[in-house]
C-alpha cells in the first residue's frame, strides 16, 4: 500500500534482490569472464566450458514460469540491465553471448502465445546452456531495424523466409533462433527457426571486435517455417522489441565502459613519467573525469528507459536517446582508454 507512493519517487537504490545478483554477477565477471577474456579474444573463440558455466547464473530460466520448469521470477528490465552492465564489465563479447538466450526467452514470454511458451521455454530449464538468440540485423549500411528487408510470405498453411541476417550470436550453432522478417502486406513478424531447415545457410563471420563470439550471417532462401512458429497471435510489436534490444545494448556499453574506466584509473595512477604518476597532470586527469561523467550519464539514461519499460510507461524515446548517447560516448570512452595507455593501449 505504501509502496505505490514510494514507487513514484526518484530513486537509484538497487533492491535487495538486485544487490544480491550484483554480487553474483560481479564475481562471475571478475573470475570467469575477465580471466579468460584476453585469451579468448586472441584465439577468436570462447573456451568450451564457458557457456556451461553461465548456465549456473540462471539468467535464461529466471523469468520462465514455474510450471514450465523456470524460476517464475517477474521479468524486470531494470534487473536485466543491471545484470548486463555487471557482466559486460568483464568482457563485452562474452557478456553478449551470456545474455543472448535471455533475449530469445524474454521475447517469447513478452510476445508469444501460451502454446509457444510451452513449446520452446522448457528447453531452457534443464540446467544446461542452450544456444539461442535473435536475428534482427541485416547486412546493409543503411539498415534500419524498424524496416527489415528479410521477408516472409504465406505458403499454404505455412510460411517461407527469404533474405539475410548478420551478426547473429551463436548464428552457426543456435538450436533456436528468433528471426525478424517482414510479412508481405502485413508488417513485421518474428519467426522461431529450429534446427537446420532447408534453404538456410549459416556462415561464420569475423569482425573487428566481439571476436570470441560466434557471429554468423544467415541466408534464407525460401526457407519453410510452420505457421505455429510465427510469434504471437497479433502483429509483432517490433518497436517494443527494438527498444528493449537497445536497452540491452546500452547496458552492455555501460558495463564495458565501466571496465575501461576502472582499468585506466589504476593504470594512470601507477604509471609514472617525469618522476610522478601521470594522473597528477590535468591533461590526463581531465580525460578520466570526462569518462566518469559521460559514463554516469549513459548509465542513468539506460536505467531510465529500463525503468519506464518496467512500469509499463512508453519508453521508446528514452531507449532511442540512450542509444544515441551510448553510441557517441562509449566509442569516445573506449578510444580515450586506449589513448591514456599510450603504446601499451595499442599493443595487444
Amino acid at each position, binding site marked *: 500500500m505504501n509502496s505505490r507512493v*514510494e514507487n513514484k519517487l526518484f*530513486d*537509484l537504490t538497487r533492491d535487495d534482490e538486485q544487490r544480491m545478483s550484483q554480487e553474483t554477477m560481479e564475481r562471475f565477471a571478475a573470475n570467469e569472464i575477465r580471466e579468460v577474456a584476453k585469451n579468448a579474444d586472441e584465439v577468436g573463440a570462447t573456451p568450451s566450458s564457458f557457456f556451461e558455466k553461465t548456465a549456473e547464473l540462471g539468467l535464461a530460466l529466471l523469468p520462465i514460469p514455474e510450471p514450465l520448469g523456470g524460476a517464475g521470477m517477474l521479468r524486470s528490465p531494470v534487473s536485466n540491465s543491471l545484470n548486463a552492465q555487471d557482466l559486460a564489465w568483464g568482457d563485452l563479447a562474452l557478456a553478449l553471448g551470456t545474455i543472448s538466450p535471455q533475449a530469445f526467452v524474454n521475447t517469447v514470454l513478452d510476445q508469444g502465445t501460451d502454446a509457444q511458451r510451452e513449446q520452446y521455454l522448457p528447453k531452457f530449464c534443464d540446467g544446461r546452456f542452450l544456444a539461442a538468440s535473435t536475428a534482427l540485423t541485416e547486412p546493409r549500411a543503411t539498415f*534500419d531495424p524498424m524496416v527489415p528487408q528479410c521477408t516472409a510470405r504465406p505458403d499454404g498453411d505455412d510460411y517461407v523466409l527469404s533474405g539475410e541476417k548478420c551478426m547473429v550470436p551463436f548464428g552457426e550453432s543456435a538450436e533456436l533462433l528468433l528471426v525478424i522478417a517482414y510479412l508481405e502486406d502485413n508488417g513485421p513478424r518474428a519467426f522461431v527457426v529450429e534446427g537446420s531447415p532447408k534453404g538456410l545457410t549459416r556462415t561464420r563471420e569475423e569482425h573487428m571486435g566481439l571476436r570470441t563470439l560466434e557471429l554468423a550471417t544467415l541466408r534464407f532462401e525460401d526457407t519453410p517455417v510452420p505457421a505455429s512458429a510465427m510469434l504471437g497471435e497479433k502483429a509483432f510489436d517490433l518497436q517494443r522489441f527494438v527498444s528493449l534490444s537497445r536497452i540491452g545494448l546500452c547496458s552492455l556499453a555501460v558495463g564495458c565502459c565501466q571496465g575501461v574506466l576502472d582499468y585506466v584509473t589504476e593504470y*594512470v595512477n601507477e604509471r609514472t613519467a617525469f618522476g610522478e604518476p601521470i594522473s597528477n597532470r590535468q591533461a590526463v586527469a581531465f580525460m578520466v573525469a570526462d569518462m566518469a561523467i559521460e559514463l*554516469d550519464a549513459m548509465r542513468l539514461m539506460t536505467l531510465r528507459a529500463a525503468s*519506464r519499460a518496467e512500469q509499463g510507461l512508453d519508453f521508446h524515446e528514452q531507449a*532511442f*536517446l540512450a542509444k544515441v548517447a551510448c553510441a557517441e560516448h562509449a566509442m569516445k570512452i573506449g578510444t580515450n582508454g586506449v589513448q591514456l595507455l599510450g603504446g601499451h593501449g595499442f599493443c595487444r
Partner: protein
Amino acid sequence: MIQLEISEQHQKTYENARLLAEHMMRPYSRKYDKAEHTFPKEMEEVSAILAQNASKPRGDKPEKDSATVKNGGNIAAVVGMQALAWGDLGLFLAIPGSGLGNAAINAVGTAEQRAKFGKTYAAMCITEPGTGSDSANISTTAVRDGDEWVLNGEKIYVTAGQQSDTLVVWATLDKSRGKAAIKSFIVPKGTPGCEVTRLEHKMGIRASDTAAISFSDCRIPLENILGNAEIAVDEEGRKKSFGGVMQTFDNTRPPVAAMALGIARAALDMARDLLSKEGIFLDYSTKPSNCSAIEAELYKMEAEFEGARLLVLKAAWMADNGKPNSKEASMCKAKGGRMGNYVTLRCVELCQSLGYSEQNLLEKFARDSKIVDIFEGTQQIQQLIVARQVLGKSSSELK
C-alpha cells in the same frame, strides 16, 4: 527501487514554475537584454508569487524513517530552477531573494540573522580582482575593533550587487593563516564605507547586474559574522572550517547546473518549433545515421540534454537522502555547463539566419548560457574536482 521519473509533486512544481516563466518572465526577455542595468521591476511580482508558494502549508507529511527514500527540497530546487531558467536566466537572477547570499544565510546563519536578513535580497561577494577560482586566496580583510568588524578590500563579479539589500562578504581575519581564517560577514547595503563602484557590461544575463564593490573601513556589528570567529589551529580544523564553506557549493552546484538545463530546453524548444514550420520533425525511430543532418543533430542535442538532466537529478537526490555528493554535484555542473553551451549555440547554427537574428531569442540563449559554464566553478574547476575524486588525489597531488 530504481525509478527515474520525478514525483507527481515535483512534476507539479515544475509545471507551475514553467507557467510563471512563460507568462511573467519570457515576455520581458528581450526588453531587459537591451536595457542592461535597468532593474526589471516585473520580477517583483514573480518574487511575491514564488514566496507565496514557498510558504504554503504543505499538509500532513507521513513520518518517514531514515531508511525511506526521500525526494525533497534539493530535487524541488533543481526542478523549479530548470523551469524558471527556461523563462530567462538573467531575469531569474534579478528576482529578489534568489541570491546566493540568501542561500548562505539560510544555511549557516543564526536564528536572529535569518530573521533579520533571510528575507532581504542577499548577494554574495567572493571574487576579487586577483582571485577567482582560488577563493582561499582572497585579500579582503576583516579586523575586530571593539564591538565591530572593520572590512577593507575590493570585490568584483557580485551578482545583483547593485540591486541587492544585503551582502555576504568573504574576508580573511589573518591572511597569513590561510583558509582557516576566511569568514563571511553580513553587510547591509548603505553601510558607510561600502560602495558599488562599477557595473559590468556583459555578453549575456544582462538583466542581472554584476557589480564591483569596494569596502573601505566599512564597519559592521560584531554579530554580523556568519559562523564563529575562531581560527582553527590544527590541520583537521582548518580543513573543516574552509571545507564547510566549500561544501555549501555541493548544494548550490546542482541548481546552477539546472540553469543550464532550463536554457538548453528553451533553445531546443524554440529551434524545434522553428524547424517544424519547415517540415522537420523527430519520430524517435529512424536511426541518426539514416536521418538528415539536422534531425541527427537534434537527436544528439536531446540526448545530451537528457544525460545532463539525469546527472542533475542524481546529485539532488543524493543531497535529499544525506549522501555525500561532492563528486556528483561537480559532475552535473560540468556536464550541464558544457551541454548548455553546445546546445544553445548549435541551435543558433541549425536555424541559421533565424538563429542569429535578434528577432528570435536563440542568439540570446547562447549568450546567456555561457555564464553557467563559468560561475559557481568553471568547467575546468569541476573537472578538477571530479578527477581528484575518481583518481583518489589530494589537491596538492593534482593541482
